[in-house]
């Protein structure tokens, strides 16, 4: 019997029970969609992290308070217990002489921003002039924060792309006055968008860090009367010097924090590569976790299909008896029902792929998470659907093939 003929029979049978067919493949649709969306988003996250590492300057060291900055184990406790101080920055400025191209402190906190009728909370980042080079920012309009701004503690602000658009729409923000937590700042510049990547400046407002300490951050930025920072960014001249500079910085801060050689560090010096590794391990854990959910969904979907196929075989017992009576062999019946199951699961697979691609596109278009749809993920999903169809179709198909023709014909 021709393959196309079997497909035709399968489609006719599936159309005879449209609603049932749709419900049956739902499990597969969800499972496959999850697999496709997951792989695409995972791929996108990796790509965006990697590109960000490259765009943020590859020879960047980040000194931050708390132990190893790991998303999974970096608990609030260990962070609260330790602080980075503005003094630490000055210490490093003095102590690290060679191989450094720039070094900047960062203090950031969330405040309400207002302009005209617009008002929302966003991240205010206190920075120095070199911050722009260290983070490879590009200016879209106006200028960035300067050393002069810091010296005179000017009330100027530079807006990220999203903030600028949310506050001003199509208006040019340059020269306008915005209010941050009630303090008036004049907009001096707007940054170019860096897209929906991790740590993108788009949602941030940059102000001179000295202005921040003096007029905005207030008591919260102090600890025991000392000015704190969120982290210190060190741009190293060459990749080969990274380890040396990292060790020097660690030594200097360890001494200033008066830690005994056996004490655990209350801060960390991480390169972008370290961050990448940490993030990747997080992404990987998430991928495995969600992958397991997708797997379970596929399994449940497969069992659902098998269940319905068993019902179908029972319902069509008379048909099977008749087919045998007019000369169908065991193998022909087996093939017919196997193809029917595979058609069902592949249909689910195709719908799932479409849905998964849709979800992935939705994420990247809305800018939530970048996603990259690869041919591999689609092939993998298709293959999964095929395997499930064959695996869960075999038993019902064998049941059908082994029916005794006379018993089947007499079945009521």
């Amino acid at each position, binding site marked *: 019997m*021709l393959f196309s003929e079997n497909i035709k029979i399968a489609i006719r049978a599936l159309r005879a029970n449209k609603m049932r067919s749709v419900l049956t493949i739902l499990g597969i649709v969800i499972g496959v969609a999850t697999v496709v969306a997951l792989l695409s988003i995972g791929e996108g996250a990796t790509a965006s992290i990697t590109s960000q590492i490259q765009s943020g300057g590859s020879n960047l060291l980040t000194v931050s308070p708390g132990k190893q900055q790991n998303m999974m184990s970096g608990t609030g406790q260990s962070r609260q217990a330790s602080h980075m101080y503005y003094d630490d920055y000055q210490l490093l400025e003095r102590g690290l002489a060679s191989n450094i191209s720039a070094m900047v402190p960062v203090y950031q906190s969330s405040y309400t921003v207002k302009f005209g009728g617009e008002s929302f909370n966003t991240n205010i980042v206190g920075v120095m002039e070199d911050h722009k080079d260290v983070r490879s920012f590009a200016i879209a309009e106006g200028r960035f924060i300067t050393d002069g701004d810091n010296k005179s503690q000017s009330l100027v602000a530079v807006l990220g792309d999203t903030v600028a658009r949310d506050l001003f729409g199509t208006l040019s923000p340059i020269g306008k006055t915005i209010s941050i937590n009630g303090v008036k700042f004049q907009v001096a510049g707007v940054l170019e968008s860096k897209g929906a990547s991790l740590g993108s400046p788009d949602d941030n407002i940059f102000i001179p860090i000295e202005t921040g300490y003096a007029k905005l951050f207030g008591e919260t930025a102090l600890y025991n009367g000392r000015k704190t920072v969120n982290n210190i960014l060190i741009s190293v001249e060459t990749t080969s010097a990274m380890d040396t500079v990292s060790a020097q910085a660690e030594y200097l801060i360890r001494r200033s924090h008066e830690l005994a050689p056996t004490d655990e560090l209350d801060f960390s010096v991480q390169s972008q590569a370290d961050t990448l590794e940490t993030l990747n391990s997080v992404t990987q854990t998430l991928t495995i976790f969600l992958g397991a959910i997708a797997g379970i969904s596929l399994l449940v979907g497969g069992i659902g299909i098998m269940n319905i196929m068993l019902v179908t075989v029972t319902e069509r017992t008379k048909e099977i008896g008749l087919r045998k009576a007019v*000369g169908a062999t065991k193998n022909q019946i087996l093939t017919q029902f196997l193809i029917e199951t595979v058609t069902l699961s592949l249909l689910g697979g195709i719908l799932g792929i479409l849905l998964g691609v849709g979800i992935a596109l939705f994420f990247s278009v809305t800018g939530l998470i970048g996603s990259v749809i690869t041919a591999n993920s689609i092939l993998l999903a298709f293959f999964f659907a095929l395997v499930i169809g064959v695996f869960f179709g075999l038993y019902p198909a064998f049941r059908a093939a082994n029916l005794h*023709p006379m018993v089947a014909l007499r079945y009521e």
Partner: protein
Amino acid sequence: MIHAEELMKVYQMGDNEVRALDGASFTIEKGEMVSIMGPSGSGKSTLMSIIGCLDAPTGGKYLLDGVAVENLDETQLAEVRGRKIGFIFQQFNLLARTSALENVMLPLTYAGVTGKEREARAMKALERVGLGDRTHHAPSELSGGQQQRVAIARALVNEPAILLADEPTGALDSKTGVEIMDLFQSLHRESGQTVILVTHDAYVARHTERIIRLSDGAIVSDEANLNPIKAGTPRAEE
């Protein structure tokens, strides 16, 4: 040639055993037209299903063209059912939502006939039973008599040597029944097919050349009917 010796078919129902066939022996030569009669439950359908290789006897011997059917494997049985035997069921057993033409093509499909030839042969069979203009109707769009004709066309399409019909006129009115009998007679006359049909109706049985009577699974009489009625001639006083 059909040769049966001491055929037994015993169903075990709990402690009772039901003897659907209880030692039936007979021989039907190639080209004969035979009817099988008997009260309900006497084993007629059981016997037909054994002759049609749809079921195996629990005892005795059944030779089809000299071959012991019990020695055939599944694939060989499928081939016999598909090519040597045309089975017409009392309940028609047509595939729903499937056109008359496709129903008739079914045995050809399993026999490996494809494409234009398959369609042409199915068309020819439908024309033979007078349904050339109903090829694309699904069973639900056909009358009972038309459905029975589709079932007959399906049984004919592979040009089997043996036609088996279990109460082919049972569900039809007498006029349609006569038309069906006419069809069987002409098939028998023109292609020399062996025709075996089961009937309750003595008038239908008298259209055949030989009448076998069953009772409780055994043959109680087996007689020649020297002057079979020619279908379509006015019904004589009973």
